[in-house]
């Protein structure tokens, strides 16, 4: 009985190890089409990424294809902003993207009236003298990230 139990435990551990290995993750991972394989509409939306596309990993390709799918549901000014910014976004480091997402999520938690004022605040902030902005940056307790 003890022997059988040991054997079963070993087999179960082996099964779990396999299932949680990167091999399994790759096996069920997303499809990654090359730029040439993209649909004409995806190519049109993702045009700013044409040069980088083939070097992106499958998960990022999948994400951009998802964004391209959302694109038609966006308002014209939003579409314009998406296309203007995707080139800069794709060139950020993974850490910078993570930081931006965190900041987006924390801004999202602000009360609606405060949230609406954020773009206005950004304009005001940019009017501050550079020394003042540098001081704020150094006091934020994190290393400066610089421009993307």
């Amino acid at each position: 009985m003890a022997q059988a139990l040991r054997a079963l435990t070993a087999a179960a551990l082996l099964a779990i190890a396999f299932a949680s290995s990167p091999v399994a993750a790759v096996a069920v991972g997303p499809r990654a089409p090359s730029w040439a394989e993209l649909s004409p509409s995806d190519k049109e939306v993702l045009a700013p990424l044409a040069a980088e596309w083939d070097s992106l990993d499958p998960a990022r390709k999948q994400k951009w294809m998802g964004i391209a799918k959302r694109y038609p549901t966006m308002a014209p000014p939003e579409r314009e902003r998406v296309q203007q910014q995707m080139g800069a976004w794709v060139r950020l480091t993974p850490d910078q993207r993570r930081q931006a997402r965190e900041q987006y999520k924390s801004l999202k938690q602000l009360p609606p009236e405060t949230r609406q004022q954020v773009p206005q605040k950004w304009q005001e902030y940019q009017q501050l003298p550079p020394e003042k902005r540098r001081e704020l940056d150094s006091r934020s307790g994190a290393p400066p990230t610089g421009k993307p």
Partner: protein
Amino acid sequence: MNDQEIAKKITSYLDRGTAGLKAGTAFKLQRARQRALDRLSAPQHAAEFALAGAGGATLGGGRRFFADARIWIGLLLLVGGILTYQYWQAAQQARDIEETDAAILSSELPIEAYLDRGFQAWLKRSEP
């Protein structure tokens, strides 16, 4: 005549007899042998399943334990379950990132604003 000589005689008779067998007879003999062997192995299988069904307490070794199909089905379900959960979790995370990125890119705030820690500090300070 001793035993060995008798045996030799018998085998030579038998050999001659088998050489003269018709093809049909040989086939029938082979089939009968096969049937007998099948019957011999069938009750053993039944005993194994009965043992497996009786519960682990009566089982000695791991080998017979793993002969039970239910163990394999269980392991298969376990692996399948883990894979499904992982896939679901990864998909959920990917959807969250996609949603957030789409919102950041389409928002009125430029990307620099999300990365500027000075702005974040200033915003926090100017909050009511």
